C-alpha cells in the first residue's frame, strides 16, 4: 500500500565524507546516557547505539583503502523494499502489524513502530529481556544490558534528564534521539509554529565534524534527505532482505557499495560507479 504523505524520519550517511573519528558515536552516548563498562573491548557486549564499522577493500599495499560505516538503528519499515521513491513506501497497512523485524517478534510490546514518525521505539521499562528482538535484527543495532552500569562516583551529575538511564537485563537501541523531537514538539506547542527540519536533528548529525550525516523527513520534498535518497549513489544495508531501512548510505566508491549489501545487484553498483565514482 502506498502511503506517500506520511512523515517518515530517516537518515543519509555519506560514507565518502565519514572519517571514522567517532564524534557521532560519542555524541550519541552522551545524549542518551549510555554507560561505560570496565571492559569495553568485549565488543559483543559493549553498548554502542551508533557503532562505526571499519571496512577495507582487501587490496594489497599500496592500494589498500579503508572506509567507515556508521550504523545506527535502521528503523526498518518492513513491507516490500526496493528503490527509493517506489517500494520504499510500500509498508504494511497496519502499523501494529508493521513487520519491522524486531517489532513483530517482541512478546511484550516493549518496542513499537510509530506510524506518525516511522520511528521504532524501545521501552526498557517494559522489556522483559527475552532478547528475541536482538536475534531478529540483522544489523546488530539492538543491545542487551548484560551488566548494571557502574557509574563512577560523581558522573551521574553529567547525565541528561531527557533520556532515562537503563537498568540491567533489558534491551536498548538508537531511537533517532526521540527525546529531541519531544522537546521540539513542546516548544512548538507553547511558542506556536511547527517542528521544522532544523528543530529536530539527532545528536550524531549535529556532532559530525564533516557533515557526513543528514537527517530529516524522507518524504518531505523540502528536506535535504528527500533529495539525497534519490541519488544513484544512495543505497541501504542489506536491501534485499526486505527490512526496508530508513537509514541510507552514499558513496562514489563501488567496492563500498558492494560491501554494503552482499545482495546488491552488480548492475546497480556498476551504473552508479560509471557516473563518476572516483575509485
Amino acid at each position: 500500500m502506498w502511503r506517500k504523505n506520511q512523515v517518515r524520519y530517516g537518515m543519509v550517511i555519506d560514507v565518502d565524507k565519514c572519517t571514522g573519528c567517532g564524534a557521532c558515536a560519542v555524541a550519541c552516548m552522551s545524549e542518551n546516557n549510555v554507560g561505560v563498562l570496565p571492559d569495553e573491548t568485549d565488543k559483543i557486549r559493549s553498548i554502542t547505539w551508533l557503532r562505526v564499522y571499519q571496512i577495507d577493500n582487501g587490496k594489497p599495499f599500496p592500494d589498500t583503502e579503508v572506509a567507515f560505516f556508521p550504523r545506527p538503528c535502521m528503523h526498518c519499515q518492513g513491507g516490500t523494499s526496493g528503490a527509493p521513491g517506489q517500494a520504499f513506501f510500500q509498508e504494511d497497512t497496519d502499523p501494529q502489524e508493521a513487520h519491522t523485524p524486531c517489532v513483530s517478534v517482541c512478546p511484550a510490546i516493549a518496542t513499537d513502530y510509530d506510524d506518525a514518525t516511522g520511528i521504532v521505539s524501545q521501552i526498557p521499562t517494559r522489556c522483559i529481556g527475552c532478547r528475541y528482538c536482538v536475534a531478529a535484527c540483522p544489523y546488530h543495532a539492538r543491545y542487551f544490558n548484560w551488566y548494571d552500569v557502574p557509574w563512577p562516583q560523581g558522573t551521574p551529575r553529567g547525565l541528561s534528564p531527557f533520556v532515562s538511564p537503563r537498568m540491567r537485563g533489558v534491551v536498548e537501541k538508537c531511537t533517532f534521539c526521540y527525546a529531541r523531537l519531544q522537546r521540539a514538539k513542546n516548544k512548538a506547542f507553547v511558542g506556536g509554529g511547527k517542528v521544522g527540519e532544523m528543530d529536530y536533528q539527532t545528536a550524531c548529525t549535529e556532532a559530525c565534524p564533516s557533515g557526513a550525516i543528514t537527517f530529516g523527513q524522507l518524504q518531505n520534498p523540502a528536506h535535504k534527505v528527500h533529495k539525497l535518497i534519490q541519488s544513484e549513489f544512495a543505497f541501504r544495508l542489506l536491501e534485499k532482505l526486505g527490512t526496508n531501512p530508513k537509514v541510507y548510505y552514499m558513496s562514489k566508491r563501488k567496492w563500498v557499495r558492494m560491501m554494503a549489501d552482499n545482495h546488491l545487484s552488480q548492475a546497480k553498483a556498476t551504473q552508479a560507479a560509471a557516473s563518476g565514482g572516483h575509485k
Partner: protein
Amino acid sequence: MDWDRRTFVKFAVGAVIGIHASPLIPKFMDDTAIWTQNWNWVPVPEDGAVAYAHTVNPHTGTGAKAKLIDGRVEGLRAIRVEGNPNHPLSQGGVLPADASALQLLYNSEIRVTKPLLRNRSTGVMTQLSWPQALDLVAGNLANLAKNGQAHMAAALGADPSSTTGQILMRLMQALGSPNVAFTPTPRETMALAGLFMMGQPFLGFDLANANYIVSFGTPLLDGFGAPVAVRKAFAGWRGYPKNQARLVQIEPRASVTASQADQWLACKPGSEGLVALAMCRIMIDEGVYDRAIESAYGWNDADGLPGFKSYLLKNLDRAKTASLAGISLPKLVKMTLAFAKADRAVAVCGPGNSGDPGRLYDFMSVLALNALKGNLGKPGGVVAQQPLPLKSLGGALPEAKPPALAMAGRPFGVNNVHELAQAALAGKPYGLKTLILCGGNFVFNGPQANVMHDLARKTPFVVAITPYMDESAGMADLVLPSTHWLEGWGDSTTPFGSAVSCYGLHRPLVKSVDEAKDGGDILLALAQRLGGPVAAALPFKNLGEAMAKRTQAMGDFKKLAEASYWAQKRPAYGAMRFNTPSGRLELSSRVLRNLLSKGGRDADKTARALGVKAGAQTAFLPHWEEPAAYAEGAAYPLVMQAVPSLRTTWGDEAVTPYMVKILPDTVLANTDKLVVEMHPATAQQLHLQEGDAVLVESSAGSLTAKLTLYAGAAPGMVFVPLGLGHKDFGFQVAGKGMNFNRAVKVTSDPMSGMPIWELTGVSVKKVRG
C-alpha cells in the same frame, strides 16, 4: 462437629483460595515489577531549566556549546558539550574528546579536589589547606632564589601562548630561572620556517578554498591544527557526482586520510620532504611554475652560495629521488603537473603521524613548493595570519643569567622539553632542585615519557598543577588541584595551520569541584607570596583579570567571554609581505645564515656541529636529510610510527571513557591489549602471525602489544596507536593498552632544535602473553 486434620485442611484450603481472591497477589506482582523499573541503583537525572553557554575547549580548539541544566534541588550542572555553530573554525562540529569532556569533569574518582602532599617513601597522600600548600612552594622557590639557585627550578607548561603559559613564563623569569618549557607543537616549527624564508611567523593554509591539496605526511583528517576546522574544509571538498577538490596524501600507511583522499602516494617513512623537493624539480623541469619566484633571493646562486634552482638541478635527480622515496615517477609527475595546473592548489605540511612538531627543512621544502606554485597570499594557498591583538602581561624582564638547560650550544632555538630533561638528568651544566608541572601531563605525554618520568623521580621537589590524579600528579610531591576547562578561566590561541587567527576563551560555567582553582590563579597567588620582583611582574588578582588586560584590544571583556572567541574575519589575501633582510622571499635563508655565523662563527662548522650533514653549502636551503631512525643499525631493523586517531587522543588531555569505548579491536583488543599493525610480508620475515604478543623495543624504551596484520601498512614498519596506556584516570581508562611515548626515541631537529620523534628504529620480537 469435631476438629481433626481433615477439617483443618479444608479451612486452610479455603483461606488460601480466599487470599488469591484478594488484591494481594496481583498488587504484589505489579509492585515488584515496578520496583525492577525503578531500581534505586539506577540514577535518575534531575530535570530543570535548560540553558546553553558558549565556550572553547582549550585542548582541541573546538568552539563548544555547553548544555546546562538548572535543577531545583541539585542546582546548575552541565549535561552535554555540543558544537558552537557560530565558531569560525569548528562551525558546530565536535570531536569525541569534546563531546565526552563531562566524563572527566564529573568523575570524582579521578579529580583532585584538595591540595595533596605526598610522602615519597610511603606514597601516602595528606591533605593540605591552600595557604599551607602555597607557602610550601613559595618557601622552596624563595629559598632557591636566596641561594642563587633560582635556575635550578624548572617549569613545564602546556601552551606558551595561553595566558596561564604567559604567567608561568613571567613567574620563572622574574624568579631568575631560564628553564621554562612547553609541549612542543608544529606551530613553533612553522614559525621558524616562516621567519627564515618569509619573515612571517604566522602562516596558515587556506584549506577551505583550495581545490587541489597535497598533504605531506601530516594526518589531515586524524588531527591537524583544529581538527574540526579541517573536516569542515574536507566536507567542502567532497560532492556528487564529482568532488569539488582533489586531495592527495603522501605517507607510508593507508591511514584514514590516505583512504579518504582521492589519491594516496605511499612513500618511504620520513621521505615526505624529499617528495616535495622532487615536485619542485619536476615543476622546474616542465617549466610549470610561477615565474615570480625567479625574483626570490636564493633562487639563483647568490653570495657564493648555491641557489635553490641550481641545488635541485644538481643534486636532485627525478628518477633517483622517486625510487628513494618509493614512489613511481610517472605517478608523481602526473600528480605534480595536475598540482601545477590546478587554480587553487596548496601543499600542506604539519604535525607528523606521531604527533611530533615536524622537521624544519621539510616545512621549508613545502613552503618552497607553495612558493613555486605561486599561491602565497592567494585564496586556497598559503596565507599569513593577522597576528592576534594580544597585549603582553607586562614590561620585559631581565634575562636570567645562567644558560637554559635545553639550549646548551645552540645559537638560537626554542626551549626543548626533552633536551631540558636530559640535561637536568645528566647534571650538565647543572641539575634541578624543583620542578613545576603546570598541565600537559608530561610524565605521560613525554615526548619521551620515560625520560620525563625519571626527571620527576630524580628531582627533589616536584609540584603538579592539574585537575586530575594523572601520571604527573602520581609522581609529584605536591599536587595542586586546578579547574577543568568548564569550571574555570583560560584561553588558547590560533591552532596550527589555520588561515585566520583565532583566540579561544573559556570561563567558569559550573561550580568547580571542592577546592580546585584556575591554574593561573595558583601561579598568581604563588607570585604574591614570593613578593619582590616576582609579585611586581605579575600584578593581577586573578587569571580573569590578567586575561582581561591581555585582550583589551578585542573589545569588552564580558562580551568577549560570552562569545568565547575572537577571530580574524577572513584570510589576509593579497601579495605577502616578506619581512626578510632582503625584503624578498628567501629560498636561501639569510636569517638562518646570520644566526649560524653570529659572533663571527664559521657558519659551516656550526651547521655541521648542529648535525646538518650537508654543511653550510645547503644549510640555508630547503633540502632533505635522512631521518635519524634510518641510522639505528641492525639491532633496530624496523621503523616505528604512531597511528594518530581522534578516538584515542587530541591535545594533551587524556582519552575519555567514551573514546575508549568506541576503539575498534584493531586498536585495543580483548582484553585491553594494545594492537600494533604490520604488513603481512614483514611479519612473515619475522615469523610473526596475526594475534601474536610482541615486544616492540627501541634504544630508548619498549612496549608490548598484540600484533595485527594490515595490508595497508608499509613493509618494514610497525604502527602503534597513540595516546593509550594510562596508569590512572579511573577503571574505565586506566590500564587500557600501552603508552607509545614510552617506546619512542626523541631526537632534536638539527636546525630548529625542536624535539622530533616521528620515526623510531625498533625491533619486534614475539613474546609469551
